[in-house]
């Protein structure tokens, strides 16, 4: 998928021209209000760019592209299974796909539990599961996640990362926004660094997320703790 866009009015995102490769996990990093969410929402087709184009011809069907926004609520008391089945709601319901998604996010055993009685991490996995169920076939599809790891404990982050790796290993692409550069380096293969709505770096995660680059991204010295997420490794 490739898109270039320029939004003048709020200048949430200006002159960004990015392409995403198949089967890779791309992290969009940047400080708050750097345009990460805008970029994801553009990619998800939720926003229409005020200028420029989002070229997503190959993934524009809902079965090829799913989006999990950052702070989402569920306005109904669905069970885990019912929530994940929302992903297939607009098509002929496919129980197999729902089962696969339940399996992928590791919640098959808890499928009858109410969504609202789950922990934050489990809820997040359910929402990713719903997005996975929405996608017909991982090959050539895109999963967009806005800050999927915020306020999750390490074990939960690891479970989610495992689910996402399963998706990329089948040929799907994951694009996620992260404010934590260290975590981005652990989970992503590619990265785009945004600052003030402009892409200042793009490429492999190691390059983009180097300490020098990060200093520019966040406009101040990175604390060692934030630039590193080795704590995640034992959980993976």
């Amino acid at each position, binding site marked *: 998928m490739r898109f270039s866009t320029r939004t003048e009015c709020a200048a949430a995102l200006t002159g960004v021209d990015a392409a995403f490769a198949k089967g890779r996990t791309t992290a969009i990093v940047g400080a708050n209000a750097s345009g990460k969410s805008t970029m994801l*929402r553009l990619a*998800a*087709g*939720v926003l229409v760019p005020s200028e420029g184009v989002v070229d997503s011809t190959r993934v524009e*069907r*809902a079965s090829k*592209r*799913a*989006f*999990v*926004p950052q*702070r*989402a*609520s*569920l*306005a*109904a*008391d*669905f069970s885990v299974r*019912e929530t994940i089945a*929302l*992903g297939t*709601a*607009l098509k002929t319901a496919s129980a197999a796909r729902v089962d696969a998604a339940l399996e992928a996010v590791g919640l098959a055993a808890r499928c009858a539990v*109410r969504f*609202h*009685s789950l922990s934050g991490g489990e809820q997040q996995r359910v*929402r990713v599961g*719903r997005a996975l169920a*929405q996608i017909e076939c991982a090959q050539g599809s895109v999963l*967009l996640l806005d800050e999927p790891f915020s306020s999750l404990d390490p074990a939960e982050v690891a479970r989610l990362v495992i689910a996402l790796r399963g998706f990329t290993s089948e040929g799907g692409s994951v694009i996620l926004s992260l404010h934590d550069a260290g975590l981005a380096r652990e989970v992503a293969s590619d990265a785009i660094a945004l600052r003030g709505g402009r892409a200042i770096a793009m490429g492999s995660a190691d390059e983009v997320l180097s300490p020098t680059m990060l200093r520019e991204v966040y406009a101040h010295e990175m604390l060692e703790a934030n630039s590193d997420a080795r704590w995640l490794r034992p959980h993976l």
Partner: protein
Amino acid sequence: MTLRFCILVFVVLLLAFLRLCVGPQADSDGNIVLGLALPTAQTLQFRALSIAGAGAVGLLLALSGLALQALLRNPLASPFTLGVSSGASFGVACVLALAATTGLSTRAFGGEFTGALVGAALALGLVWILAKRASGRDAVALALAGVVLGGVMSSGAMLLEQIVPRGLRGDLLAWMAGRIPELPEFSTLLALWSIAIVGMLLVWRMAHVLDLLMLDDDEASAAGVRLVRTRVALFLIGGVLAAAAVSFAGPIGFVGLVAPHAARLFISHRHALLVPATALCGVIVLLGADLFRQALDLGTGRLPVGIITALVGGPFFLWMLSRSRRGGSEWNL
């Protein structure tokens, strides 16, 4: 689930049967007493008409409430919250006032039905425009706009009450209590049921979309829901259903609020099941209220059905609210 649906259908049939059998009758001394007996051919006709009217109103209000709740993602939405009922009352007040000041019959202005319909449409349209101006199609802004507009409409009706001749005030008060007309015309009932059935089928067809609307806007939109189109459809369906009910029976409260929640509680939150369950619950609430009013003789005439639904529906809703607090989610009633 099938069993629960069977229970709901059974309750509807039981209430309808009781309604057919309960009524005043003359005892051997010639006194009029309330009794339980199979109806005569003539009372059967009266009672069947009443059942048809009450059932249609219940169905219309319940489905309107469900559509508006899905539209606003707001468990407190109902024809009341959006100001539809107040708008309809205002419309009726206008027709009555026009008739009183010009000395013509209300039929010269299209009758109370037209007034209610125009008033309800006006309220809905205004709420929609206000909310759109306020902040996109934000659910809370829409609900707030509805509450405020409902207040303005009610005040408008009260203002009309003040400036029209005094004889009209009783008419308006009676209208606002909510009554199921005695011996409605067959054509009216037919129109009412047609609207109810078509509305139900339309909402039912949208069941999967309604499920997805329970997600965030972005999530739903990315999942393939055409938000604007869906919302306009829900708005129209919810508005027309409520206007039809209000123009027939006056602003009967709490049905549109309680029936969908009762259906969620008893059946499911999934709309494919929720739509028929809500329809059944709406019919149950109104048939129950109508039966109650029929079976209660205070010696002062029958109570307006709106008073009974409010007296029963209000506490029920409060009870559900208190449950929801413990449950954590506002929808987890």
